[in-house]
């Protein structure tokens, strides 16, 4: 049995890392503006526009990868255990449907964590607990990020310091996502191995019980 989400998870991991680098560069641009707006206009503005555009395109690809990844993760979990409570399409609905996603963004990872915690392997249980403990650290910054971005976009003046804070939150969120992608990917690999082991043990037991 192969876990289809692992490959996409690797791509997502790399895009999130690149996202961190770009957010850091944009924070530096905002800092340059905060320190000396004239110098910024002469030397940094064009670079900032380029990085911003690149970030937007990168974000679009990252979102696409994320949706594919979350879909495949749920398909993998369903393959490991039919009793897994969320279907792949259900997972996408939890993320994409407004209002519903206020709950969905929390429960989707909570269900994954509970699934891992319920496994027999100590390693899987440990990963499940780690995942569960991370949910608040990813969930609440999403709202902080949203509020900061709204304030920045609605302001008539450029709020450079607030931008730096917002980029800081972006970096933090990307790091959380990276950690979760790694934990979930490792969890799927380990759960797959556990299931394969269980199956082989069942086969061996069945062979022993067969009449000679």
């Amino acid at each position, binding site marked *: 049995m192969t876990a289809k989400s692992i490959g996409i998870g690797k*791509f997502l991991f790399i895009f999130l890392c*690149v996202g961190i680098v770009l957010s850091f560069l944009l924070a530096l641009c905002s800092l340059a503006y905060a320190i000396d707006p004239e110098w910024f206009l002469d030397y940094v503005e*064009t670079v900032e526009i*380029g990085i911003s555009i690149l970030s937007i395109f990168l974000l679009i690809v990252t979102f696409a990868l994320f949706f594919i990844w979350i879909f495949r993760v749920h398909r993998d979990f369903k393959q490991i255990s039919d009793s897994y409570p969320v279907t792949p399409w259900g997972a996408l609905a939890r993320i994409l449907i407004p209002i519903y996603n206020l709950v969905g963004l929390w429960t989707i990872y909570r269900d994954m964590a509970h699934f891992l915690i319920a496994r027999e392997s100590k390693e899987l249980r440990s990963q499940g607990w780690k995942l569960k403990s991370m949910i608040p650290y990813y969930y609440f910054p999403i709202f902080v990020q949203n509020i900061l971005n709204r304030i920045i976009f609605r302001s008539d003046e450029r709020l450079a310091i607030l931008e730096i804070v917002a980029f800081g939150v972006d970096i933090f969120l990307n790091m959380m996502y*990276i950690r979760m992608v790694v934990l979930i990917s490792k969890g799927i*690999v380990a759960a797959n191995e556990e299931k394969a082991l269980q199956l082989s043990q069942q086969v061996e037991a069945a062979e022993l019980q067969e009449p000679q």
Partner: protein
Amino acid sequence: MPSGAMDLTKKEKRIVLFLLGIPLFLTAFLMFPHYEEFSAPGEIVEVTELGIQGHVHVTYVYGGTTKNYLEKLLVWGRLAEVDVHFQPVSQEEAIREEEIEEEVGSAIQQWGIANALEVSGYAAEEADAFEAKFEEIEEKAAKYQGSSFGLMVAIGLVEEERNIDFSQAGQYRIAGTGTIEQDGSVGSIAAVRDKVETAERSDIDYFFIPEDKEDYPGEGMSNQEEAEQYVKEHQLRVKLVPVASLDEALAFLETLP
């Protein structure tokens, strides 16, 4: 950062490079230097907004230079409703225009305002009032570029100085375009089509344009020919009034029933 779970195979590395290449390619394309001038219909503004107690209107249009496809896309998005058109220009030409605008743009506008004040006879005997009005107009016109509002500013100043209402209590909506020279003659301007279109969209009854068929300083069609052709082609309602001088414009306004 854990490495084992995230190690890439050769095939995966190629896919990642391809995926990263998409945003990079699109960004490079959008940021690639490509210069185009743009122009689009704008709006009309009563001269009161320039601090003049008159009833005629000046016309402004949107215009400028985009330096890459991203800027073009943004301008196109912002002005999509008003039919923006672009014209490719060389990088040298675009930079030269920008330098000219930076160096003498405000001087050209000041010169236009000073001419309008002088030829309209505004506060001819009172240097302080002349100076104060100049500063007021200059401050309020700072958000606009160029001096193509000269003729209409001069007409507005005549209204204020002589306490006349050429609109006849709002019966007529009057606007126009054209620079005003020291001798009271009206000079040619840029983007005349967009200015006529702006007048049409703003329900202007009479629109002054430079009468420059005979002495147009540029290449190609004169303002007058271009405006008349545009009105004819698009069957516009606005009535064009070509004038060679401020006196001709005033004479026309005084004959309105």
